[in-house]
């Protein structure tokens, strides 16, 4: 069954067309990697799938619901870890988790043990009562991932989830996600710039560049198609070596600055 079905979707911001007539599908219970250089349209696509942006053209089906016309049903179906920070820094780590659980209608006898389990997984349980503003960038990232898994969604969107995390934490988190994928049939849709990560965990990969999908298939198929040995080489063969310029709004650059500052301020 296709749990995500995107047909002919475009998104324009004024004159700029960020996503140009893309179509793809994700089978239920698979791990899908959505790869592309900076500014290729990955985050815009995720925002359209998760009801935050409305497509200019085309149709989307997520777990059978159209995010534009039935946003609430669609929102019941997924969880998301955003690319930029989305925690309330004035609340404690535990309060952020609890807020999420209540918002997603998870019952307290379910969420209490689960919050502990997830916070132990990301190694934050002993810091559960600290305010998030005192956390380092990596700790915030781990908390966000734990939060995204809290309500056991059908589809989990992860927009560059492991950016800035050390290999130990990355392995840990992917192990947990793969386990959920096998045990509960969780569908995972993720973006990353770590090609080895995509190579290792993804069943299917789609590569987007300049707003268009240029290639899709399993990591093996892409390597064969481009006659390369690793997914990274295949990726470079398909998208070229040129460095991309991303247009950033004031909001984005502020977040970026905030993130860099936090990154350099590890405790």
């Amino acid at each position, binding site marked *: 069954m296709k749990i995500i079905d995107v047909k002919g979707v475009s998104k324009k911001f004024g004159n700029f067309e960020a996503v140009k007539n893309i179509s793809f599908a994700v089978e239920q219970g698979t791990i899908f990697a959505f790869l592309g250089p900076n500014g290729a349209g990955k985050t815009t696509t995720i*925002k359209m799938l*998760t*009801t*935050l*942006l*409305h497509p200019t053209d085309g149709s989307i089906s997520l777990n059978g619901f159209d995010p534009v016309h039935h946003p*609430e*049903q669609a*929102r*019941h179906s*997924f969880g*998301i870890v*955003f690319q*930029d*920070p*989305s*925690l*309330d*820094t*004035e*609340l404690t780590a535990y*309060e952020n988790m*609890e*807020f*999420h659980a*209540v*918002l*997603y*209608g998870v019952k307290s006898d379910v969420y209490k043990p689960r919050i502990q389990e997830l916070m132990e997984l990301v190694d934050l349980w002993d810091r559960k009562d600290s*305010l998030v503003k005192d956390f380092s960038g990596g700790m915030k990232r781990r908390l966000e991932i734990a939060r995204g898994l809290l309500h056991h969604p059908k589809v989990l969107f992860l927009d560059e989830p492991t950016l800035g995390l050390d290999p130990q934490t990355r392995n840990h988190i992917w192990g947990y996600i793969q386990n959920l994928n096998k045990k509960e049939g969780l569908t995972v849709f993720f973006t990353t710039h770590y090609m080895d990560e995509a190579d290792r965990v993804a069943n299917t990969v789609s590569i987007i560049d300049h707003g268009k999908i240029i290639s899709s298939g399993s990591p093996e198929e892409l390597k064969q198609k481009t006659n390369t040995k690793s997914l990274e080489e295949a990726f470079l063969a398909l998208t070229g070596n040129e460095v991309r310029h991303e247009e950033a709004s*004031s*909001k984005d650059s*502020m*977040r970026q600055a*905030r993130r860099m500052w936090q990154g350099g301020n590890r405790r």
Partner: protein
Amino acid sequence: MNTIYILWLRQLKRYFRSKSRIFASLAQPLLFLFAFGYGFSSIFARAGGGNYINFLAPGIISMSVMFTAVFSGIEIIWDKQFGFLKETLVAPVSRFNIMLGRTIGGSTVAFIQGLIVLLITLLVGFRPSLSLLFFALVFMFLLALFFTALGTAIASKLDDMQGFPLIMNFLVMPLFFLSGALFPVAGLPKIFSYIVKLNPLTYAVDGIRGTMNGMHAFSLTLDFFVVVIVAVVCIWIGSLLFRSIEA
């Protein structure tokens, strides 16, 4: 229901954790209370207006409720910039409930701020009548709802804090100065009095003052209905604008 509660709780936690903000937002009403209160009291008494502190205190309480409420509404802009808004926008709950929970939370914060100022005015000699105090508190909460919803509505359309001075100087300050918070509404020049009567804040201030010390220019029933209607209209417009936010 749980959604509304958790959003309300969040606003309160944030409020009580930022002690500096509580103190900072007391500074302005206190300045007005002392500067105007002591500055004009002898002239006010000579003009036959009676005790100016008694007249002014409800106006200053209204001011602190209103300013805090607008600011609580505007806070959505911070949530937009720091990314937290997205977390609530993708949750499987109706946007109306999110907007309502935030608005009630922000109103509660503004209401508490008004209570603190009320206590301070007692220290400088304000003596409200206790018989209608409950209704005064109802008016204060309605006023808080009205301006939190207004702030939310405006903030839904803004992307950063750069528009904030504009809102303060062209909306909040004029509404405050043209509301009868600082001076009696009766006996104003004609055009000026029309403007004051068109200002919904006038009725909230009048209701709060009337229930606290009996000095009201309109009937309290009229005050009540005007404030309820503008609060409902602002919540309705606010929820429409909030629903249309794209992140």
